[in-house]
């Protein structure tokens, strides 16, 4: 266990203490204690920059399940470190922000910070694990913590709805990803991502290449809210705003991007990889931007904007794959796409984080996020307004902010499609820059909407739930830091170039780096009159025009019928699957034990008879049978006769006694066969169970006339005969087909030497097969408690006079 492992697990280790701190120290906001964790981790990870920027990696392994190839390998390279810094850096700011956002007397902060730390640790685990199974585990943990955080205000119906939606979609993707991981492991023979990258050729040749790729991509697309899985993200906005800023904009939704970047070396030589990612990414970019414009909730706008920006980065990562097909020239022009992706990822975290926090402030101070009610806040909230302007304009891609730089690089990367003469990119690929342009226009429009509708225009303070005023300083510091970063990174982007971007890009192109190509990252404002500059100018011109004529074309949003929307389909499928499940269940869950017994017996007999036939085991030989003594004949007759007689009993008591006769008869058989242990156990069990039967039947009503005259039921008779025949066949078969020598000999020889016992049966029970016994008593205990709770529950329901339960049972 190295310090690195400890660092990754630190948030998880700290989490259990939070509820106690929350209870014990009511006067101090719990957030202050939590804040220590991300700050420490940020400082710790910051020191790694020196290592990764020199092109080195750090790798530490702790054995977990070595026999399965699952080890906790912490692996820090440029890409992982970039994410780790984002997670801890933004995490620290968000925790600081939440201290002022969440009221310590009203909210259950204990829960909140436990979930948040859970998420932080899980996210660090995702980006710093080399073993894919470990990464998957952390991946699902992020889904779970996200679920808990979205549902934090669980009294609200929308919160629960949003939480469930995000859970269903992201866990669906996570499970697909697990499938992909298993396929990759079966090809490569290792769960390590580095081994997969090293054996990339092996994977590319495999017939399961496409399956593995699509499954992995499903995981990435669901997590990063790509079309058509993006529908969970807007509903996730029910979470408290610090959570939205952290999970649903800066970090968790970028896990999908991380996965795509991480798996790029494995898949990116395939044309399908490029096409799927670019298509999905570009369409998501457009769809998110297009839908953001019609939102009236500020957080809704930001949610769709996040979807759109994630699509942008996704498509850039896809385009970056083209760099592999462009060797020979030192200055690889397609690498610009990947550089832009990484750069925009950082920029997005800064401007979107600040915007989310800005919206949180507005919501907190005015009581609403509805842009139809807001307006004119500029004068009362000048600092918040400044933050909003910086963030929005950076998002819109205007100079001198960092968003402009990465947006230019994005446009440049899309125009490069024209010079790609492979994968048919130079024909249908023309659509990519066109869609990018349209999407950017919409991005420009909603960016304007965010700050104009909130801060400018007519002030309608009387309609607001609260009288607005500027936020407390603690709430302004985190977004202000991010806004300052937006500006600073705009002016001196090259502080990132060699420290963060280059190492990250290098880990996406291990083969190019190995072949001696150098990743050159040099970001600057003025490129001369290039196509992307004209595109930006066009976006600004068209965007401004459309912004002012917005009422003229808003009508197009009403053209889409509700039933056809993805949300409609999601809701519909939930309702439908619920109904179908009920219908299916009602068909076989009749409530009668006899029906269940029939299912069980028919299935058991069917399976056994079938497998006996399948393995050709019906060749019975009766040569080795022992001689049947007269005693055994008599006893056999007694057992069979009493079993038959039970069928004709008109009341319960004689039936139980006859059943007891059968049981004691079997016990006597054990005596004949010299098995004292079995005989003893059988006798006592028989005694106890007869007593139990008597007790149960004592409470039951007399057998009614109707039941007593019950007619012969052919179906039931057939099932019983089937079971009898199966068991008989089974015993004949085991006698006649001894392919393996009996294990009894082993027990006989070793019972004293290995276990110091002389009673073989008992030694087998407690020692040789102690596991069986252990689980048996567990099952017994569970059954006992089950019966106890079932009966007690029923009786308490009755005494309460609560007819609801029975009413439901009738249904």
């Amino acid at each position, binding site marked *: 266990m190295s310090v690195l492992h400890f660092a990754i697990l630190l948030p998880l280790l700290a989490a259990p203490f939070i509820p106690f701190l929350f209870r014990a120290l009511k006067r101090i906001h719990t957030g202050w204690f939590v804040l220590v964790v991300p700050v420490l981790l940020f400082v710790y990870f910051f020191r790694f920059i020196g290592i990764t920027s020199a092109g080195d990696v750090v790798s530490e392994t702790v054995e977990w399940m070595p026999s399965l190839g699952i080890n906790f390998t912490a692996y820090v390279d440029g890409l992982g470190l970039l994410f780790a810094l984002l997670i801890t850096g933004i995490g620290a700011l968000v925790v600081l922000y939440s201290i002022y956002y969440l009221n310590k007397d009203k909210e259950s902060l204990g829960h909140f910070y436990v979930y948040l730390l859970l998420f932080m640790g899980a996210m660090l685990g995702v980006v710093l694990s080399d073993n894919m199974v470990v990464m998957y585990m952390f991946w699902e943990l992020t889904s779970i913590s996200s679920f808990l955080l979205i549902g934090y205000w669980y009294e609200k119906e929308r919160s629960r709805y949003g939480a469930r939606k995000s859970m269903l979609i992201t866990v669906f993707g996570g499970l697909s990803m697990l499938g992909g991981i298993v396929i990759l492991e079966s090809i490569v023979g290792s769960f390590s991502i580095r081994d997969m990258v090293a054996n990339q050729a092996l994977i590319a040749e495999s017939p399961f290449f496409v399956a593995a790729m699509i499954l992995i991509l499903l995981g990435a697309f669901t997590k990063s809210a790509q079309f058509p899985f993006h529908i969970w993200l807007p509903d996730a906005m029910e979470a408290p705003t610090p959570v939205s800023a952290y999970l649903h904009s800066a970090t968790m939704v970028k896990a999908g991007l991380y996965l795509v970047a991480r798996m790029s070396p494995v898949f990116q030589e395939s044309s399908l990889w490029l096409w799927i990612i670019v298509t999905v990414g570009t369409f998501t970019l457009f769809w998110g931007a297009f839908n953001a414009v019609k939102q009236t909730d500020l957080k809704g706008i930001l949610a769709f904007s996040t979807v759109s920006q994630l699509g942008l980065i996704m498509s850039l990562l896809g385009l970056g794959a083209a760099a592999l097909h462009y060797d020979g020239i030192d200055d690889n022009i397609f690498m610009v796409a990947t550089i832009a992706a990484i750069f925009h990822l950082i920029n997005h975290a800064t401007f979107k984080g600040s915007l989310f926090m800005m919206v949180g402030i507005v919501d907190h101070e005015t009581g609403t996020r509805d842009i139809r009610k807001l307006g004119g806040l500029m004068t009362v909230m000048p600092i918040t307004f400044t933050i909003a302007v910086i963030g929005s304009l950076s998002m819109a891609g205007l100079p001198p902010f960092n968003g402009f730089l990465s947006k230019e690089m994005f446009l440049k990367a899309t125009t490069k499609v024209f010079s790609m003469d492979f994968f048919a990119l130079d024909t249908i690929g023309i659509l990519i820059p066109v869609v990018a342009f349209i999407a950017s226009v919409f991005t420009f429009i909603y960016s304007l909407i965010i700050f104009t509708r909130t801060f400018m225009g007519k002030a309608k303070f009387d309609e607001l739930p609260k009288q607005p005023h500027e936020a407390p300083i603690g709430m302004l510091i985190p977004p202000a830091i991010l806004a300052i970063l937006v500006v600073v990174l705009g002016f001196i982007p090259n502080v990132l170039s060699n420290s963060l971007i280059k190492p990250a890009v290098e880990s996406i192109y291990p083969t190019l780096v190995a072949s001696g190509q150098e990743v050159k990252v040099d970001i600057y404002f003025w490129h001369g009159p290039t196509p992307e500059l004209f595109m930006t100018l066009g976006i600004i011109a068209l965007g401004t025009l459309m912004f002012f004529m917005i009422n003229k074309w808003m009508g197009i949003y009403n053209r889409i019928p509700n039933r056809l929307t993805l949300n409609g389909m999601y809701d519909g499928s939930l309702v439908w699957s619920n109904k179908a499940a009920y219908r299916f269940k009602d068909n076989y869950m009749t409530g009668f034990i006899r029906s269940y017994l029939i299912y069980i017996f028919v299935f058991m007999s069917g399976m056994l008879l079938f497998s006996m036939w399948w393995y050709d085991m019906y060749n019975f030989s009766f040569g080795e049978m022992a001689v049947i003594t007269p005693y055994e004949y008599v006893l056999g007759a007694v057992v069979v006769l009493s079993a038959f007689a039970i069928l004709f009993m008109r009341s319960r008591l004689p039936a139980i006694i006859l059943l007891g006769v059968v049981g004691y008869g079997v016990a006597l058989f054990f005596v004949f066969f010299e098995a004292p242990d079995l005989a*003893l156990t059988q006798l006592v069990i028989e005694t106890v169970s007869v*007593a139990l039967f008597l007790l149960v039947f004592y409470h039951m009503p007399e057998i009614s006339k109707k039941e007593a005259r019950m007619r012969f039921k052919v179906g039931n008779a057939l099932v019983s005969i089937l079971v009898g025949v199966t068991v008989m066949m089974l015993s004949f078969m085991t006698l006649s087909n001894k392919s393996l020598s009996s294990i009894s000999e082993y027990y006989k020889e070793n019972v004293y030497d290995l276990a110091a*016992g002389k009673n073989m049966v008992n030694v087998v029970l*407690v020692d040789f097969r102690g596991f069986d016994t252990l689980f048996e008593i567990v099952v017994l205990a569970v059954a*006992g408690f089950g*019966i106890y709770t079932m009966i007690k529950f029923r009786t308490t329901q009755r005494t309460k006079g609560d007819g609801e339960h029975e009413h439901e049972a009738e249904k």
Partner: protein
Amino acid sequence: MNTKRKSKRVNDVILQTAAVIIFFIIIIFSINLFFSGHYSPGGGFVGGLMTAAALVLLLLAFDSKTLATVLPFDYRKMTAFGLFIAILTALHSVLWDRPFLTHAYDKFDLPLLGEETLHTAIAFDLGVYLVVIGVTMTIIQTIGESE
């Protein structure tokens, strides 16, 4: 219905007198079964069942209230305790870096009994014994008490 049942309950002197004596015989026999398990027929499972049978006999001869005052055990706790012992015994070997459920034994010179082998299997078996009694009695008591 209820009154009819109550009137049916006879004060069975013969059964009650016999049950008290037989109860002890069965209990002693069941404990003997439990301890002798490793060398001759018996063991925790049979022993536990036998003890439960003795308790059932008392239950039938008297009633559940009498049983509860004479032997005030909480059988659900007994089940849990038995499971706990069994799992603890199974786990102890892990501490000595042996696989789960490895038993240990050695010969000891005990006062009165002379040289005897002590085996951790007996602790495991004790767990089984307690679980069997606990579960059987829990089931019988709950069903018996529910009206």
